[in-house]
């Protein structure tokens, strides 16, 4: 068994090839590289991409969540060096390690060294914080995901700020992690990067390693069990009606009387008082005569007031709907102007848009009142 393992070891760079031992099992290595991919996708879409990449960002976030749960479980049921129990976390050991580093050396550790162990702990906890705050932000702001049924806009808004803060912390942690890896490789001459591919480390003082094929079946089982569980529970929670949002039908008279000149606005985009003022001033409606018979005015007003911004807890209702402006316009709220300041005026004049008040030209879900980031779709010929 053991001799067989030795015969298959790579030859070449290290003088004593028979001292290579398998330290990182295959599930752990796969976890590591999938995590690298998922975090890169989430990082790029989160920091750099325009907001309508949110879908991709969220998928990467879900992947990170599943990977994290796997890693935490693997810290209990994985192979020897994957277990959290084996992490040398003691402060005294860490101080000794730090002292040694200042002398230009880093002693051999079969698994993680003390600094590395702390690094993993920090990475796992920042990533967990990111996934949780992301889920709450997604739920409160976009009314999406497994937590949408119990998250208010305010809580989601706070979570988004926390999410952004933790993202910068993670950037710092990744920087430290890479610094450590480079130091191990180039200063202390430990081939830790190669070990994350082959799983093997050249260790003189190591007890006999495990078989190359060890733990693959267990890893697959743990991954599938937790993956199915998380996706199942997540999907069933995500199917519940979100808090603070409901579908409202558009009455026929509202659609025909207010939809001839422009799109019909979701009632949650204005406050009760703003709707009352708009309905009272139809004879001079933004420079046009939009006067209506009294019966229609009464019935449309009652619909708008019954479903006004105060009755929704969405991003659009909170940021724009509940904010009154002197002209009663949505487009004059601070938030609307800020969110659309990067759009060239010429885009609003495109034939396919026509005007800034034509929300539906760019927001596929304008009629739901949700205005989700992922449903922004700039028309052809318009680049932000």
């Amino acid at each position, binding site marked *: 068994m053991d001799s067989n393992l030795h015969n298959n070891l790579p030859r070449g760079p290290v003088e004593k090839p028979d001292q290579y031992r398998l330290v990182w099992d295959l599930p752990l290595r796969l976890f590591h590289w999938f995590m690298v991919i998922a975090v890169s996708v989430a990082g790029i879409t989160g920091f750099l991409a325009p907001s309508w990449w949110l879908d991709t960002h969220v998928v990467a976030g879900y992947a990170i969540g599943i990977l994290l749960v796997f890693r935490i479980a693997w810290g209990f049921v994985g192979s020897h060096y994957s277990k959290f129990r084996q992490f040398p976390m003691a402060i005294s050991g860490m101080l000794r390690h730090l002292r040694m580093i200042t002398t230009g050396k880093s002693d051999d550790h079969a698994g993680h060294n003390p600094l590395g162990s702390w690094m993993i702990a920090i990475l796992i906890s920042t990533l967990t914080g990111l996934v949780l705050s992301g889920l709450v932000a997604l739920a409160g702001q976009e009314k999406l995901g497994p937590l949408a049924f119990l998250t208010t806009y305010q809580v989601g808004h706070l979570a988004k700020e926390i999410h952004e803060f933790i993202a910068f912390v993670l950037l710092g942690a990744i920087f430290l992690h890479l610094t450590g890896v480079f130091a191990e490789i180039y200063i202390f001459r430990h081939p830790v990067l190669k070990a994350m591919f082959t799983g093997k480390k050249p260790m003189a003082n190591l007890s006999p390693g495990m078989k190359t094929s060890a733990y693959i079946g267990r890893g697959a089982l743990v991954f599938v069990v937790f993956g199915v569980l998380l996706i199942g529970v997540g999907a069933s929670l995500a199917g519940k009606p979100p808090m603070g949002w409901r579908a409202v039908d558009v009455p026929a008279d509202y659609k025909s009387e207010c939809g001839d*000149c*422009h*799109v019909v606005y979701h009632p949650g985009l204005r406050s009760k008082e703003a709707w009352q003022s708009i309905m009272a001033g139809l004879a001079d409606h933004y*420079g046009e*005569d939009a006067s209506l*018979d009294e019966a229609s005015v009464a019935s449309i007003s009652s619909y708008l007031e019954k479903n006004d911004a105060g009755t929704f807890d969405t991003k659009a209702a909170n940021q724009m709907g509940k904010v009154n402006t002197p002209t009663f316009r949505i487009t004059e709220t601070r938030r609307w102007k800020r969110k659309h300041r990067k759009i060239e005026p010429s885009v609003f004049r495109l034939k396919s*848009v*026509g005007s800034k*008040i034509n929300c539906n030209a760019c927001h596929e879900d304008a009629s739901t009142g949700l205005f989700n980031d992922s449903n922004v779709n700039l028309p052809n010929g318009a680049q932000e």
Partner: protein
Amino acid sequence: MKPHANSFTLSTLAVIIFTSWILAGANVAFASPRQNILADYAARVKIQTPGFEGFSTDRGKKLFLSKPGTGKPDIPSCTTCHSNNPANPGQTRAGKAIEPMAVSRSPARYTDFKKVEKWFRRNCKSVTGRICTSLEKGDFLTFMINQ
């Protein structure tokens, strides 16, 4: 062979007659609300102008293309929103498409009296600063029906 052919021609003829009868009936039913609206305007004009000789496509066209300069500065003409050609779609100032005004392109137009009156009230006010007369309305509809 021959009797067969005969009966074929006969039944084809019957089908054609029957179909055109149905179509004609539908056409009458379809046109009548619009004709009723026109007749209504004509009756109102006659009260004021006993010598009234009927609506005019030319006067309607002139109204459609004119720029009276007495309404809202941003809305100088019917063509501002309805485009210069009644057969073409127009666009509101808020960017929404308006179906062509010509009846040949939009057969459902001018069949709902309340709707027609509502838009004459609004649009005439915006463009000319005053309410359109029944004569102007009838001329305008006549122009559009003949487009």
